[in-house]
């Protein structure tokens, strides 16, 4: 009886068998033979989509790479305006949401509907948490004028930021003192009082300004390019990398907003997908025989996490 099925009767039997499979599996589309067949096709499809997503983001990663190798000082300056604690917290939030997404797939495969709902809701909640922190970060940047391109009008200098002061307290004190000195000198020059006020300011800044620099300050001609605070190299001063705003500083925020913005759009799309999956789960669509959509949604979500895993050190942890 071990003959192969080539006879019309055999083919008929096979199609009858497939009809039975289709009747048992209401979510099996007519052009697939078995649920497994449908699942594998869907999985291949989502992986091809993820490949296009990786290459889509590659354009921005390329812009980042080119610009960072060309102008590293822009990144040394710009990253100080990002709070690594918020970025780190968002990393943990996304990693946790990846865990709940993976857990959701497991629950769908085993058929734990209640646990599946809990995991999807947790994933959506974490995604909103991520966007909430992103909102706090963005609104802070908007408020400080740290915007891309022509909108770039920063209201703070690098040395005024808490993180810079924590790292280089001496350089921050010096920069502030020099700024005060310069302001006073300009005021004095405007009112024609020559450098009388400068003497008074010098008394105030003396504790923080090194002796060699104080000598320079007494001689107005020698301190002509005072604007160039970062260019002052003094053995008594700490390294001041990232102190002075570089010429193309605004590009950092163009890259920051485009990379995190595109990622944020993907998070929003992910939330929409999860809400759709939640509705279908509640309707009782998923179980051990049909869990493809949950699996594919989770794969997309993991990719969003994967991209953030790289964005976090590239933008927040520049050193």
């Amino acid at each position, binding site marked *: 009886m071990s003959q192969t099925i080539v006879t019309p009767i055999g083919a008929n039997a096979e199609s009858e*068998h497939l009809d039975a499979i289709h009747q048992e599996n209401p979510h099996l589309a007519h052009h697939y033979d078995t649920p497994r067949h449908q699942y594998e096709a869907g999985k*291949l499809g989502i992986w091809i989509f993820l*490949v296009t997503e990786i290459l889509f983001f590659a354009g921005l990663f390329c812009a980042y790479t080119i610009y960072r190798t060309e102008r590293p000082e822009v990144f040394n300056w710009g990253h100080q305006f990002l709070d690594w604690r918020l970025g780190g917290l968002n990393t*943990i939030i996304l990693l946790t949401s990846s865990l709940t997404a993976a857990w959701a797939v*497991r629950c769908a495969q085993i058929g734990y509907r209640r646990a599946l709902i809990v995991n999807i809701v947790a994933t959506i909640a974490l995604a909103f948490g991520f966007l909430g922190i992103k909102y706090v970060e963005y609104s802070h940047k908007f408020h400080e004028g740290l915007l891309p391109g022509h909108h770039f009008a920063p209201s703070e200098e690098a040395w005024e930021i808490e993180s810079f002061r924590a790292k280089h307290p001496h350089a921050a004190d010096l920069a502030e003192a020099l700024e005060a000195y310069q302001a006073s000198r300009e005021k004095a020059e405007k009112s024609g009082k020559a450098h009388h006020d400068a003497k008074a300011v010098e008394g105030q800044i003396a504790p923080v300004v090194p002796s060699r620099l104080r000598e320079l300050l007494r001689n107005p001609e020698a301190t002509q390019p005072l604007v160039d605070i970062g260019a002052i190299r003094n053995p008594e001063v700490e390294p001041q990398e990232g102190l002075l705003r570089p010429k193309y500083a605004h590009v950092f925020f163009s890259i920051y907003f485009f990379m995190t913005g595109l990622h944020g759009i993907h998070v929003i799309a992910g939330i929409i997908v999860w809400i759709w999956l939640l509705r279908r789960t509640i309707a009782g669509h998923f179980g*051990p025989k049909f869990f493809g959509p949950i*699996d594919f949604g989770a794969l997309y979500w993991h990719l969003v996490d994967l991209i953030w*895993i790289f964005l976090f050190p590239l933008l927040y942890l520049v050193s």
Partner: protein
Amino acid sequence: MTNSAERQVMSAATDQHQIVSDDHGYSHTISTRLMVAVYAALVVLTVTTVAVARVELGHPWNFVAAMVIASLKGGLVVAFFMHLVWDRKFNLLLFLTAILFLILFLGLSLNDRSEYQPSIDAFESAQTAASTP
């Protein structure tokens, strides 16, 4: 006849079942313990990358360390959360193709940028000359 055909379809199904050597249905199910272990490793690596960034390692090394840690994290996500270790190898091939083209894209663009460095420098000095009369 009908019985034999049915048996063939059925045995084909069981064969496929064995090829994937899964413990549930037609796809691998990740164990809770492994999932939590991967998550714990990801959190530890996140803390590590923040800690390493606060230590001065010299010019390229901070960047190299950050990228190595990020790649490890990405590897964990792709291998376990995204099931690639148990999946059909064709899906792994697709992923690796994306990475290959990403590297080609970045590598060739970087190479091109170095080629144009003299033009960039010339443009820069011309601009500086124009802005300072």
